[in-house]
């Protein structure tokens, strides 16, 4: 492929007038424009079949597969939701939530939705008084997911039901010290000079 006189490109790009070119370059411009005109003129006959085909699809309701795929994508994306309720109901609802989240539904554990899985958080903090986990699964709230060290061996644990997907998180020790999960393989910069860990919650863990 040989480079050609740049004025040919300039004329074809409309940067200079074709009339300003010497005759031999104008001939080259004409050749290329004729070639393009051939490609443009040889148009396939307007296909009535195409419009019929497309309109048939337009008139059909959206495939349920697409609806399900949209729903799956929504569930796979961490959704943080907060909502306001009347004060009169708030205490009752809070109590219900506490009851339902702390008391398992049965011996086998909570009934998981189709697009939920289990995330296990484990960290060794022998001198800690409290350890929480905060991340993109709970709007980075520091007090809502406590880890426990039931046997007082310095290893703190929590098992959490979450929608499937990937989340960034850190541990919060004693309410103030942010620590990445060093046992996690996946780390990513948090843009604040530290590193977050990443957990991938899978639907197959039930």
């Amino acid at each position, binding site marked *: 492929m040989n480079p050609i006189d740049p004025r040919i490109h300039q004329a074809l790009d409309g940067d200079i007038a074709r009339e300003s070119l010497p005759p031999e370059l104008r001939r080259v411009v004409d050749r290329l424009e004729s070639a393009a005109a051939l490609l443009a003129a040889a148009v396939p006959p307007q296909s009535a079949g195409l419009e019929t085909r497309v309109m048939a699809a337009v008139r059909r309701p959206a495939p349920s597969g697409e609806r399900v795929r949209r729903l799956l*994508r*929504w*569930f*796979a*994306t*961490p*959704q*943080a*939701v*907060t*909502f*306001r*309720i009347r*004060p009169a109901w*708030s205490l009752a609802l*809070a109590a219900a*939530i506490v009851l*339902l*989240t702390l008391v*398992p*539904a049965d*011996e*086998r*554990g*909570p*009934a998981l*939705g189709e697009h939920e899985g*289990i995330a296990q958080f484990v960290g060794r903090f022998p001198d800690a008084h409290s350890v929480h986990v905060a991340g*993109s*699964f*709970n*709007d*980075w*709230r*520091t007090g*809502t*997911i406590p880890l426990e060290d039931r046997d007082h061996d310095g290893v703190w*644990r*929590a*098992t*959490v*039901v*979450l*929608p499937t997907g*990937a989340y960034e998180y850190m541990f919060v020790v004693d309410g103030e010290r942010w620590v990445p999960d060093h046992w996690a*393989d*996946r*780390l*990513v*910069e948090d*843009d*604040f000079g*530290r590193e977050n860990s*990443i957990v*991938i919650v*899978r*639907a*197959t*863990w*039930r």
Partner: protein
Amino acid sequence: MRPGLILVLLASPLAAQSERDRLEGRVPAVAIPTVDSLVQLATREDLPTEPLVQKALEGGAKHQPAVRIAAAAQAMLGQLRDARALLVRAGDAPPATAAEVTTIYAALKRGLPAPVVERIVAALPHEPRGSALHAVADLATHHFEPDSAAALIIDAARQGLRGERLLDVSTAVLHEVQRGHSRAEAVAVVRRQLPNVPSPPKPAGASVAGARRPGTTALPPP
């Protein structure tokens, strides 16, 4: 039935507050107008807004100064644009969904080179790529060459492994390395096993029984 009800309550978008409301009280007040305007910009450009809100909430939770939070959100908007441009280059038909843009953003954030991400996107045109990209990133984190890692994961996908099962491929490779194989040997061993790589062990029954759902804030301010 009651846990199901909790799931519906937690997941209902109908109850979602506006993004600005989510930031108030959690992010330094001075940063909120900047973050809010970035969210509006992302909305206008059909880019995902949730990662921006999450980044601001994260900065607030970590007691970061307003200027740092604003800078992080601004940088993220540019990275989301780059992620969408990558999807276009890789041949995805528009419009790119928020989930797809976020997936690509996350892969690039994990350090995968853009050409490798493009290659995976192009090789899996009709399905979510999150697991495939994380699988490749997992191997790259352990110093596997990203192109070779991508080739293995793409091969696994072509042999019928889908979604989360692709993570099992990278896990299997890393196990082979732990057993003493070189990286090249580990890849070869797992390639021979495809598509029958082992699934991960399930968590112990006791820990699953104690699993909790995170409580979301339900109380209005006093």
